[in-house]
């Protein structure tokens, strides 16, 4: 890429959640639900002496992408590391449940989830976890009717229960900078020891949980540069693709076979994890 192209490129990651959503939607179609002026904020953070954000760090907006009705749910990574609390989680779950009602009534609305989150907000514990479980159930139900599109773009990544939400999406888009994992590096190091996972070794962390590796192991469908236009084009293509049939996550046998090929005694390295995640085909070659 030449310098002029690089300078002209507009970053998706540097935008806030609301601006990201505005950039994905057709001009003039964005209608925010439960906007910040509704002041639906966390009741738990203030009790713990933590400043709240008026939208609890979650932007919900209806609109259209290339004419198709969508509902965007975007997590603001700068507020509390994108952690999901009771209110923000309920906003996403509620939006997805409404989309499910619409889909069942023959008015499909495609959900687009912008997931930049460390997972559940620890200060809200079970209230956030309950909301995340509702999000999972709604995504699983929606997939029969519409594609559920996920994007993980920034270095905050997508972790904890929300990484399961990302995995449940029918189409997941990520950048090289993004990370996807159930547990973050420090949690793994604390639980398994520094020999297993050194949370200060950034190249190793990205080699195992970064967007490129997750694409190579099939956990991410599309790898995209941090370019607002390119990401918008990938989201538009995923929205237009129609529901996934059969759902990738429904193939439990393939997942179990993959697990059986993994040697748990061996320290994970990017290369052999990629090999283990390949699906062997009948002719003996890797697909």
């Amino acid at each position, binding site marked *: 890429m030449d310098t002029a192209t690089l300078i002209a490129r507009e970053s998706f990651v540097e935008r806030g959640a*609301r601006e990201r959503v505005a950039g994905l939607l057709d001009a003039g179609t964005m209608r925010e639900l439960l906007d910040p*002026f509704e002041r639906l904020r966390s009741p738990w953070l203030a009790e713990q002496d933590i*400043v709240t*954000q008026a939208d609890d760090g979650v932007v919900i907006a209806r609109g259209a992408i290339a004419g198709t009705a969508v509902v965007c749910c975007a997590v603001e990574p*700068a507020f*509390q590391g994108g952690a999901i609390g009771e209110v923000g989680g309920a906003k996403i779950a509620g939006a997805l449940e409404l989309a499910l009602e619409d889909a069942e009534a023959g008015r499909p609305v495609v959900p687009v989830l912008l997931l930049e989150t460390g997972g559940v907000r620890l200060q809200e514990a079970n209230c956030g976890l309950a909301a995340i479980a509702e999000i999972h159930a709604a995504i699983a139900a929606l997939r029969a009717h519409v594609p559920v599109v996920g994007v993980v773009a920034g270095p905050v990544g997508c972790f904890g229960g929300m990484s399961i939400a990302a995995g449940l999406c029918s189409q997941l888009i990520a950048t090289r900078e993004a990370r996807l994992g159930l547990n973050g590096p420090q949690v793994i190091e604390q639980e398994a020891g520094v020999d297993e996972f050194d949370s200060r070794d950034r190249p190793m962390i990205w080699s195992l949980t970064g967007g490129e590796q997750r694409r190579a192991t099939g956990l991410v469908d599309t790898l995209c540069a941090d370019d607002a236009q390119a990401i918008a084009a990938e989201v538009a293509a995923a929205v237009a693709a129609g529901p996934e049939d059969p759902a990738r996550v429904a193939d439990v046998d393939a997942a179990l076979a993959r697990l059986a090929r993994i040697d748990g005694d061996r320290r994970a390295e990017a290369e052999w994890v990629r090999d283990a995640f390949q699906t062997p085909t009948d002719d003996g070659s890797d697909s």
Partner: protein
Amino acid sequence: MQTLSLDYPAGAPAARRALAGVVGSGDLEVLLEPGADGRSTVEINTSVDGVNEIWTAVVDRIFADAAQPAVALEINDFGATPAVVRLRIAQAMEQAAGADTGAH
């Protein structure tokens, strides 16, 4: 966390509401709504304790012009410096006045 309420004489109510910033490290969120005629109010929630004098001095200066539109501001602060405070409030004021700053 500390809270602080300030009010100032002002002109006619602002034309529309506006939003600027995020409750992230070194930043703040400004929610601007049209105020009552002739009076601007500022409600501040800040993560930093013991800086009420600085906040008062910074906001006093911003609202020194009593001819400005009347606004009701809510500020949720996560350790913004006075320069960032001024920029975010100015950004919200410009949006409320209808000027297109290109920023959101």
